[in-house]
């Protein structure tokens, strides 16, 4: 029941955010410090989903150099935010230290940075227009 309502809510928000037309987003990530592991990427379609951690789409991208790029297809045009981290040891989890501070590199769309936590939706939100879109992120 919870799963279904979450899906419905996610779909509804995605529809609200959507504009006319389908879009494609290519994300290029530079500044990767260490080859190996994977990027864990979440694409978010609203402020509420950003806060709740409900992604509209996600990818695991193998890392074999100091930069990678990947594409999301068939997206409704609209406003989005990206959260990603470099899962250096490939264990599928974002490693943290004893105090809970991340020890694996991470980034948000617009290269937004948080102050005492994750970047805010307002800082990370960007627009995907119908057709091809590009977004560049830096993990340094």
């Amino acid at each position, binding site marked *: 029941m919870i799963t279904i309502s979450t899906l419905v809510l996610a779909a509804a928000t995605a529809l609200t955010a959507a504009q006319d037309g389908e879009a494609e987003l290519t994300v290029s990530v530079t500044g990767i410090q260490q080859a190996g592991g994977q990027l864990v990427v979440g694409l978010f379609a609203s402020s509420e989903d950003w806060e709740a951690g409900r992604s509209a789409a996600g990818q695991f991208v193998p890392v074999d150099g100091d930069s990678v790029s990947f594409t999301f297809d068939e997206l409704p045009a609209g406003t989005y935010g990206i959260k990603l981290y470099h899962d250096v040891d490939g264990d599928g989890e974002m490693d943290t230290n004893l*105090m809970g501070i991340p*020890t694996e590199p991470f980034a948000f769309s617009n290269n937004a940075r948080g102050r005492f936590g994750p970047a805010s939706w307002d800082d990370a939100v960007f627009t995907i227009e119908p057709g091809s879109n590009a977004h560049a992120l830096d993990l340094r």
Partner: protein
Amino acid sequence: MQTSRREMLSMLAAAGGAAGLSGPAFGLLSTDPVLAAFEAAAANDPWTLGMADAPAEGRDAVAERLHGRLPSGLSGVLHRNGPARFTRNDWRYRHWFDGDGMVHAWRLTPGEPVTHQARFVETRKWLAEEDAGRFLMPTFGSVPPDSQGMRGPDYMNAANTSVMMIDGALMALWEGGSAWELDPDTLESRGAKIWGEGLAGLPFSAHPKVDPDGTIWNFGQAPMQDALVLWHIGADGQLRRADMVGDVPGGMIHDFAVTDRSLVFLVGNLMWDRARLPYLDSFAWDDSRAMRVVAIDKADWSQRRVWDLPPGFLFHIGGAWEEADGTIRVDAALSDNARFATEGARDAMRGHVRPETDSTSRMRLITLRPGGRFEQAEFADSYAEFPQIDPRFTGLERRFTWHVGWSDNQLRGASQLVRRDLASGETRRFDFGDDIVVEEPLFIPASDRAQEGAGWLVHTALNKRARASELHVFDARRVDDGPVGSWRLPYANPYGFHGCWRSL
């Protein structure tokens, strides 16, 4: 990139005809009010030399001997650390503690000239900001224009507070993040010290304590979680244990003490309030609660004793020891408020000093008895900071503390060196007078077997009249006789915080 005012001036100077003309002659006044105030103060107050920027490439010189000579048994390196870069792109930090760390090596070899070398610690922050030509990161007490958010504490690590040797490496220490490892001979930076999995980026504070057997104890604070990280490192420099300990109130903790059995934390009343930038503004004075003292058992971190003392604030502790019945005696430089941390160190960036925000700490001997009882004795003879002890007596019963001192009506830093006998209350004191700002003295034992206090004091100072940094060596038993040897550099270094002695 935008041309800075300084670059424009140097271009004008290079073009000829501009020599002797100052910025205001071109209408090029600093638009940053803090920088403008500092430049105005620096024009006629040589005390500001200690708050000025050091050159990015560092410094190297042979010191001029003023008088005396090095004692024959005193051979080694005095390493020091302190904030030394406050301005970029015509914008000046708001707080003294923000400056990037510069690590010094004063090399003392009997029969040879005293030499000085200094290099900035090449932190992630330093390298990124050198590259950008402006400050990028929020710091302890400042939010530079267009600064970025953080991805972790080491992004703002200034590595500017102290230094210590661990396992052959020189560590530049800060309060909120990793130790930064340097080559002790070249002062070249190697990078953040990561002690193990899950330990990257954890705070490793600037006042580790070394037991007589070489065991190292340290802490890091997570004030918003009312928690500490405790570090236990063996005499071999290998990590024995690091773990979180909760329920230690989030009052800013800069230093701590060890006894042979306990780790002792005095939690002053500058308390975590809520997350704000700059970070310092996350803390607020709260004297509605006690100054909590927590003694944690070295062998079992779940065991503790607590005492509630009247409100207060401190940066630095002399030392502590524990008696058979569990009574702990600890001496520290305490004040009744935190105005120097929250305001005085901000005034300093404008080149100003005000009596109401200057440091007013005095040495106190606190006796923590079983069952939460305590007594305090304040030594009212002078203000005091940077207390030091004979390191062989760390955690053990002892008589002496050495510290810098200054008198009631005296602003702009300490002029005195003081040896204080905790048992008799007697002091021996040397006052350099108005020209000298005295920095932290380190005690170096004359030999491994010498009795407590038999050895030398080595300290640096700013000579305001000569506009130069100096190094002075005292017989630690006869401080009142004045230095047995003094040396002077051809330049003035920014004021430093803390140092360590590396015997050679």
